[in-house]
């Protein structure tokens, strides 16, 4: 059980790190708008004009 001496601080330290990262992200406003980014990422940088052949498929 001696291994616990290493593992426990390691586990707690990792936990603390992630809590810290979360608090940092909250502070930076990364959670202010959680809806739009998930759509924004779907848009490509460049989108060509629409293909006329597919126009009728509405």
């Amino acid at each position, binding site marked *: 059980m001696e291994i616990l001496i290493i593992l426990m601080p390691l586990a707690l330290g990792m936990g603390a790190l*992630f809590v810290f990262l979360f608090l940092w992200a*909250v*502070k930076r406003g990364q959670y202010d708008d959680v809806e739009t980014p998930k*759509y924004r990422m779907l*848009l490509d940088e460049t989108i060509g*004009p629409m293909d006329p052949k597919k126009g009728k498929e*509405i």
Partner: protein
Amino acid sequence: MLKCAHCDEQALRPIYSAADGEYQFPFCCHGCLTVFELLKEKSLTSYYKIKNASGTFKRRSPVTTSSETFNFLDDERFEATHSYLNYEGQRTMDFYLEGIHCLACLWLIEKLPEYVEGVASAKLDIEKSVVSVVIAHTGKFSRVAQELNQLGYRPHALANSNQAKDLRIQEEKKYLKRLGIAGAAAGNIMIYSFSLYAGADKSVASLFNALTVILAIPVFTYSAWPFYQSAITSIRNKTLSIDIPIALSLLMGFIMGGWNLWHGQEENYFDSLTTLVFLLLLSRYFLKKIQDKGLSLTDLHFFYRNESVQRQSTNGFEEVYSDFLNQGDIIKVHREEFIPADGIVLAGSSLMNNSLLTGESIPVKVDVGAQVFSGTQNLGDELIIQITKVAHETRLGKILKNVEQGWALRSRTVDLTSTVAKYFTLCVVLMSLLLFAILLPEGMEIALTRAMTLLIVTCPCALAISVPLTFHRSLSQASKHGIFIKSDEVFEKLAKVKEIFLDKTGTITLGRLQVINLNSQVPVNNIIYSLEKKSRHPVGRALVEFALEQSAKPLEVTEYLEIPGLGVQGIINGKLYHISRGEIRENGKVIATFQVQDVLRYDSKTIISHFKKLGHKVSIISGDRREVVEQVARETGIDNSYAEISPEEKVKIIKTNDSLMVGDGANDAMALEAASVGIAVSGAMDISLRAADVYLTTPGLVSVEKILILSRETMQVVKRNLILSLCYNSLSVVFVFMGMISPLVAAIIMPASSLTVLISTLLGTKKMRSLWKS
């Protein structure tokens, strides 16, 4: 059925663009068509590509176009109150946009810098439909607003109520932090508790136990703070809320865990309790998030007066923001513009559309010396008006003030969970006292521990988690379909509604006139179209629309004359034509007669019969003339009708218990506020939104029926969850009395109960699942 390529509304009579050679898109109206042509011109047709590929997530109504300059946006005084510097020091203004509904909208809006000069960046919050526009030194906000307006997203500049907004954001961030810490601590505690339950060695066990206590400290203090706070508030207000038993249970758990650690015992309930705190915070966070989806009251405040106006100054007329008008100012109001303040006509004669203010469907004629009111629309020629009253002194302002005061005075009704919480708390406290008394002969410590344990394990967590989640689910489904609900209280109130009051104009009817029959000996379509195409009178517009359907062509008109109240006339091919009061005359001889009517929405009758089937008493309440109201009542099968009612009288009629008012416009605002639930149906931005509890972004009564059914079903689920969670609590009580309780048993019962109500919430009811399919 063809769907409009732009707004996805059904295109009953599709029109096609002449400029559109390749796509052959159908459009429902000229508004949507214009936007398409504009996008084509700017080679932004990828809009439709994205839209078709991704689908829509909100409904929108067809585009109505208008040409406005928005010059007031560049006014220094306006900029001072509406723009702010972003963190990089650039000038920014937030606009609420009407009509945001799909991924392609996001694409189009965020591309603003590419096709509008001087825009540095544009960022859209799709859920709130709010775009933050950053402009470079050369840019002008008016230019951006014009462009957005042309594309069919009517912009409304939001005032930088920075303090209120910042406060809300800070509050939300704090909540998230509490949530994160509770989640991390609960997870770690669970690991150590698990090894304790599995039977860890004595030396390791005491170390683990100490660790759980340390980890639990921030949860019980920092994360759980809102529960203590709300418990204290409700005790102070001498009410009982669900937070009191929760706070009690948390406090007891914390004391007992600390006490046991001090005495070298491993027993504590921290694993269950910290998880509980996490889940509670999470469910409430979700509910709060979804409620923020709609517009906040402070944002809505700015809509109805966000207009520019022509004011006389030393160098003629100049455009100013309507808020900056003073008593005595002389203003010019063009055709189709709204009057920004009460005043007296100095020059010109015209027709006024009072429907927003009074509910009358027929325009009223005004001449020099006549009084005109803020919020009415000029349908005829331009008017010169001297302002007599501004802001809160106007008739519209008074209505708004009434509405605001009404909201402030509104008492919070005692909701179902609070009622249950009342008896629940009483019951639990009495039982723990009883237990204490029973066990006292066996020793003080045992009695105290068991009594405390009872308080801990009967924490109404399942109930407290399930209620916000149930509301969250219903709210999110509703908002997906364009129904925005300002508070979750509405569900309970709506489920109790007995009497429904419906406004006529715009609610049951379309709110615009249509020609219902035309008898003529000779073809008159071309004549009607040529004469009436310039008229903004509702009858004239109805005639033009009718003529266009019969594919009318314009003819040359000379000596055209529009006489307010007496129709239009002009000479075509040497003959004098006159259209007035349902008759068309050629050189004085009647050649055709027609009738116009504000026609019913196609589904009004069916839905009203559904209301009746649901057991509601339906009444029609309107400021319009008696015969019109009674005819609509007859056609839709409504037994009860109130006609020629002023906004103030409406309030008196409606102030009954469990009433629902459905309406739009300023004339209904006070009634919407007075009813136990008010639903604004217009879909447009006006004062009624501020007064209503629910607002619909799509017109018509379909959504009203849906929200009524949804509310009933939601309350069903809430009640079901209530019973389920009370069952689990009773089980815990039995265990405690039998002395069979331990942290391990609690660690099984508590999550099990939460899971059960969670599943029950997610399943909803059969009706709920089928509600949105049609």
